[in-house]
Every structure is written in structure tokens, then in C-alpha cells.
């Protein structure tokens, strides 16, 4: 454990890089998945194609995707953009289905009421459908976050450093302290992401906090 105490600065800076490499794709992936999910929800015939297509992306091995990125984007092999782009693709693979499920979870009568009140396209989406889809989307985002934190560590192999470096180094140079630091760091980061998503989701859905029935005395 002395290894960890001696290298707190290194662990900290790798953790920050890890958080950025896993977190930025999470936000980018969400931004891309929302319109894609909406299209699949709106035009049902697109749904199977969109879901199967994006779902398949998740089966591409991460190492392969990391190596492919420079070819597709024309970036240098060591550029962290490669990792961000690849992780964004994994996030999209998980989130498009989640967004469709979230929009599908909006109660039919509520959606019909929105239409009947004269709410038009974008207003209905942003004012009614999306807010009500938040709980489901947040649940999907939690899965994607944990998945991202785990997959990003593979990027060490192509030389983009983050907590995965500790795992590779710890293994190659037989430093148990580094292995432990890498594992615990990833776990802590995944937990942190999870908590942040839950807190934000709760703040965005204040109506779900209190569902106690109205006080007695009011008419039925």
C-alpha cells in the first residue's frame, strides 16, 4: 500500500484523465442518441434498423475500434480524440434503445392530452415527452457510464493514458499496489458517475419526489 501513498499525485491525474475520457463521450453520446431515439420512436419502421444497427456497434471489440479510429478520422494514433470518438460510439450503442424505451414509457393518455391541448412537435417533445422519459434515460445512462469507465482502460494499449496504465504497468512490472490502485480507482469512478447521474435525474424530476396523497378533507 505504500506504493499507492507514494504515487497519489499520479493516480489522481490518471483518474482525472479517465473521468474525462469516459465522461465526455457519455454527454456526446446522449446528445446524438436523443434525436436518433426520437426518430426511431416517431417512425416505427425505422426502429428495428436503428436499434439493431446501433446495438451491433457495441459488439465491435474496443481495441479494434480504438485502432480503426485514426483511419476513419485521420487523426494521429496517440490523439485522445480517438478514444473519445470510440467511446461515444459505445455510448450511442447503449443509449439509442434507452431513449426509444424512455419515449415509449410516456403514458399514452398523457401524450394524447398534450396533442389535444395543441402542443406541437418540438414543444410536445421538449415539454412533455422528454421530461417524462428522464427516469428511463437516466437508468440507461447509468449502465453506459459504468460500461464506459470499464472500457476506457483498454486505451492504455494504444498509448492513451488513464487509470488503465496502472493495470498494464502493475501487471508487466509486478506491482500489486498499482494493480489495486487501478481497480479501486475504476470502481470509485464508476460509483461517482452513478451517484452524479442519480442526483441530476432526481433534481430534474422533482414531481417524483413526493407522491403522498393529498391531505384528508379535500373532496374526492
Amino acid at each position: 500500500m505504500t506504493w499507492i501513498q507514494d504515487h497519489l499525485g499520479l493516480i489522481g491525474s490518471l483518474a482525472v484523465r479517465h473521468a474525462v475520457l469516459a465522461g465526455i463521450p457519455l454527454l456526446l453520446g446522449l446528445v446524438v442518441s436523443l434525436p436518433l431515439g426520437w426518430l426511431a420512436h416517431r417512425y416505427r419502421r425505422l426502429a428495428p434498423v436503428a436499434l439493431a444497427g446501433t446495438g451491433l456497434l457495441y459488439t465491435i471489440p474496443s481495441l479494434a475500434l480504438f485502432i480503426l479510429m485514426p483511419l476513419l478520422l485521420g487523426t494521429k494514433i496517440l490523439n485522445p480524440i480517438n478514444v473519445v470518438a470510440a467511446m461515444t460510439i459505445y455510448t450511442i450503442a447503449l443509449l439509442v434503445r434507452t431513449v426509444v424505451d424512455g419515449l415509449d414509457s410516456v403514458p399514452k393518455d398523457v401524450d394524447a392530452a398534450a396533442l389535444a391541448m395543441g402542443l406541437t412537435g418540438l414543444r410536445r417533445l421538449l415539454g412533455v415527452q422528454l421530461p417524462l422519459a428522464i427516469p428511463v434515460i437516466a437508468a440507461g445512462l447509468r449502465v453506459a457510464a459504468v460500461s464506459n469507465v470499464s472500457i476506457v482502460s483498454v486505451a492504455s494499449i494504444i498509448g492513451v493514458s488513464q487509470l488503465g496504465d496502472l493495470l498494464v504497468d502493475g501487471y508487466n512490472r509486478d506491482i500489486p499496489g498499482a494493480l489495486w490502485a487501478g481497480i479501486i480507482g475504476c470502481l470509485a469512478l464508476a460509483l461517482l458517475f452513478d451517484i452524479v447521474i442519480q442526483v441530476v435525474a432526481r433534481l430534474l424530476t422533482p414531481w417524483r419526489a413526493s407522491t403522498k396523497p393529498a391531505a384528508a378533507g379535500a373532496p374526492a
Partner: protein
Amino acid sequence: MIRFDAVTKTYPGGTTAVDGLTLEAPTGQITVLVGPSGCGKTTSLRMVNRMIEPTSGTISIDGRDTASMDPATLRRGIGYVIQHGGLFPHHTIERNIATVPLLLGTDKSTAYARARELLERVGLPQSLAKRYPAQLSGGQQQRVGVARALAADPPVMLMDEPFSAVDPVVRTQLQAEFLRLQRDLGKTILFVTHDIDEAITLGDQVAVLRVGGHLAQMASPSELLAHPADDFVADFVGRDRGYRALSFVDGVLPALAEPTVAVGDSAELARERAIDGWVLVTDDERPLGWYAVGSPGDQVTAERLALGGTLARQGGTLRAALDSALSAPSGRGVVVTDEGKLAGTLTAAAVIEVIEQQRTGRDRAPAVQDDPSAEPRIQHSPGGESP
């Protein structure tokens, strides 16, 4: 006036939901569309505000073809109450009610002030304004749904089974209050239900639809009960339609004076005054219940009263009178004045006699009610006018 002119809706699969529907929903009245599931009643309703587009035919509101209007503008001008309330769960009650006024550009404080007024209008305390729908009971949510539809004061309202998701007691209460509200507001209402009793209670006229979207009959409730157009309507209206038709008939009820005792009187006095073993117990002329001679104890106590008899109002319907007689443990139905004070009692036989007397004259002169204090449905009998 909402006018359907040969309106047909056929879905791509070939299913015909509505088939050549022609009907008029007159201004200021409640027109009920009723029928079994699959009869196209909700589809018909949703074609009025173009949530569903008709395949052919035209729908006009006050002479304007709805197809020529912008759908969103059209919808904002029509109140819509949906099954289960359909409230936005993520908006507070006041925000829900203010939905259409805010869309129309009313400023927030005006819209919210109006929302609070409407809450009281539908019988809810203003203190609910800041709550979320999930914090309200089903019945309260339905009331908010009605308030939301009224918010922009639209002349036309569409109501899709608005009271179906609540228990029967609350439903009856909501129906009565809805009729009271409508008497003040005089909206042009198209109302969908699968419940023929609700249709008859609420409708100024009732359109019975059959599966496949055909109009089977359009008539006033009393006409529907008395002269169903065919077997389908007769069947749908139900077997006890003869009894229910009494809801639309009033008569001079020959209530007889009934001796009474008060809580605290001696069992001896009760025995002296009882007729056929039962004596009516009142408090300040208000009937409390029936006391059976021979009940244990030497005093008439509130705990020993047999309750359960319904009360008929003087000048009310024959249905209420007959029900009162049938439900009273003594066999004598209690008739009360509009103030709820005892007017007398009458037996089922006496009510039947009134029915028999009326039978001869009934075909020629439809019953016209003029007593506004009796059951609300009286205002909706043929010839009845909304003030």
C-alpha cells in the same frame, strides 16, 4: 354546433372505425356518443379536433370546416378531457390547468390566477395548486382534467370517458357536479362513454353507435328508453329500461302523513306510534331512520336505527319514489321537501298506481319537468331548458 357530415374513417389495414356518420351536436347541449368498444366513438371524438383525420366526409364547428383550420389552433380552441385525466405528471396542478392559456400567450400570473379560480369552480381547494397530480386522488385528478379543459373558456368541449376511472360513488358525484357546471356554462359538449346509464344521466341527446361505426339511433334519453329503434339499441339500453324510464317521469306523489318519534323517546311511545312494527325517527323534522318495535332497550337510540332507505324528493322522479319505497325496511318510502324535511311516506303500490294513471296520457304528452331542485337529470329531459 358540431356537425358530422357522412364522416368515414378507414385505417390502412382496411378496418372501418367510423362509417358514414352524420349527426349534429347542438350548441349549448351535451351530446353523448355511446356504444360498445370498437364502435368508433373515441375515433369520432378525435376527428373533431383532428387528432385523427377523417378518410372522407366533413366535420364543421359552427359552420366552419375543421379541415380548413390549422390543427394546433383548432385544438387550442376546443376543451379536451381525456380518460384517466391525462394530467401532465411533471407539472403542478396550476401549471396543468394553465397549459392552453400559456400556449395562447397569456402571461403566467394571469393564467395561474385563473387556474386557481377554476380549481374552486370544480370543487377543489386552492391549496392543491402547487401539488403534483400523483399527490391527488383519482377523483381529484378528474376534476383537474375538467378544469384544464375549461381554462381557455372554449365554447366546445370534447370529453372521452372522463369519469370512467373512479369508483361509482365518486362518479355519481362528479356527474352531478358536471351537470351543475354545464348549467352555468352552456358549453357545446360531445361526450363519449361506454356506460349507457351515464349517457342517459348526462345527455341532452344520445347517439348509440354499433360496432363498425354505424349510428344506430340518435334520440333524447327518454325517447331512447321508450322507443329503441331496433334490437341492438334495445339490447344495449338494457333490460330494466322500463324502470329506468321512470327517471324521466314525475307525478304528484300521494305522500301520507307518517307519525314520528325522536331519539331519546321511550320504546313505549314508539310502540304506540308504529305502523306495521316500524316507526320513523326524525330530528327537527329531518328523517334519521326506522326504529323496529321490540328492539332491545327501553329508549329509541341512534345506534338502533335501521338505515338504508333512500329518500325521494317531493316533485322528484317516479324512479326515486319507487326506489325509496322498495329500499325502506318498513316498505314505506320517505318523501322529503327540498329542505330535506319530512313530507310523508308512500308505498310501492301507491307509486305503481301513479304510473298506471299516467300510462294512458304518456304517449301523447312527454313529461316536462319544471322543478330545478330535484335530480339533476331533470334539466335534461326533452323540452327542458338550460337556464
